[in-house]
């Protein structure tokens, strides 16, 4: 078998464009996921049990449903149900963001739950306003706990964006496959695509590991 990585070099701008698209998609999913996760977390920590039940159902459902299935479901069914044409990128980002919101919501909840209730009580006994307690006492303690798992799941987001190739979004994986099918040099293109993904994901998982996240995605500190 003869390898010719020169062909990758010649197609480099196309591949790099796909890589840039992967990064942009990951950032968009991350930002919407964080926003959605905050909303889910707020609902989950709500006083009313029926609101909590909705948040629990959301988290349970969207953490269980495979990314691929939700991706296809939204891609095919949303335009039919809504009766409008939705851009492919929007369906892809929506699917990944819905799942990311469930994961981030649960990460935020566990982070806040790790702050002892006595901390809230201490703040209240000092006559602090609820918002002030959150801003000065709870969040400064919850954020370091949460940072590892958040970065860990961000690595998963980058991985998940490669699934968007299945619905024809021209990110790294899609372009690697397209270039491969054109030249029959799948080996070279897919290998380089793998290396590109590794280049983003490995630093993220190193950080997550330094924050105490194990390979199984659990904190051990």
């Amino acid at each position, binding site marked *: 078998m003869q390898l010719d990585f020169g062909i990758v070099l010649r197609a480099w701008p196309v591949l790099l464009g796909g890589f840039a698209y992967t990064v942009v998609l990951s950032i968009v999913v991350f930002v919407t996921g964080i926003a959605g996760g905050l909303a889910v977390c707020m609902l989950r920590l709500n006083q009313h049990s029926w609101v909590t039940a909705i948040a629990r159902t959301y988290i*349970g*459902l969207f*953490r*269980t*449903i*495979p*990314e*691929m*299935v*939700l991706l*296809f*479901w939204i891609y*095919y*069914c949303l335009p*039919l*149900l809504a009766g409008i044409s939705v851009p492919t990128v929007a369906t892809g980002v929506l699917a990944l963001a819905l799942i990311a919101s469930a994961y981030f919501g649960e990460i935020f909840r566990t982070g806040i739950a790790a702050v002892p209730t006595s901390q809230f009580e201490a703040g209240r006994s000092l006559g602090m306003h609820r918002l002030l307690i959150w801003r000065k006492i709870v969040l400064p303690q919850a954020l370091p706990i949460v940072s590892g798992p958040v970065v860990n799941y961000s690595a998963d987001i980058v991985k998940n964006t490669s*699934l968007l190739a*299945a619905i024809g979004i021209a990110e790294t994986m899609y372009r690697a496959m397209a270039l491969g099918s054109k030249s029959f040099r799948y080996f070279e293109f897919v290998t380089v695509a793998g290396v590109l993904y590794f280049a983003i994901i490995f630093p993220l998982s190193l950080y997550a590991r330094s924050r105490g996240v*194990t390979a*199984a*995605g*659990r904190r051990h500190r």
Partner: protein
Amino acid sequence: MAKMDAGDPAAGNTKIVPPLTSSLISLLKATAALSIIAVDDIMKMINRVNSTSFRTIELYTTGAAIYVAIGLSIGALAYLLEHHFTPKWSR
């Protein structure tokens, strides 16, 4: 199987159940991606039937429900397993 006694170091086994469960569910989710390389799993079959019948919403909703049912069953089994291995004194 006998329940673990208090003080039994093997009672620590219960700690591996939750991460193992989430790994198993991740694995289940990952199998859905195999449909892309034409492995005839649920997802691929649904794609195939859809391409001839066009009952898109019914098919994909059922497919999603199947995965959720399997995933939640794994979760429920893991809960029972964890409960089984947790010594009485720490319940």
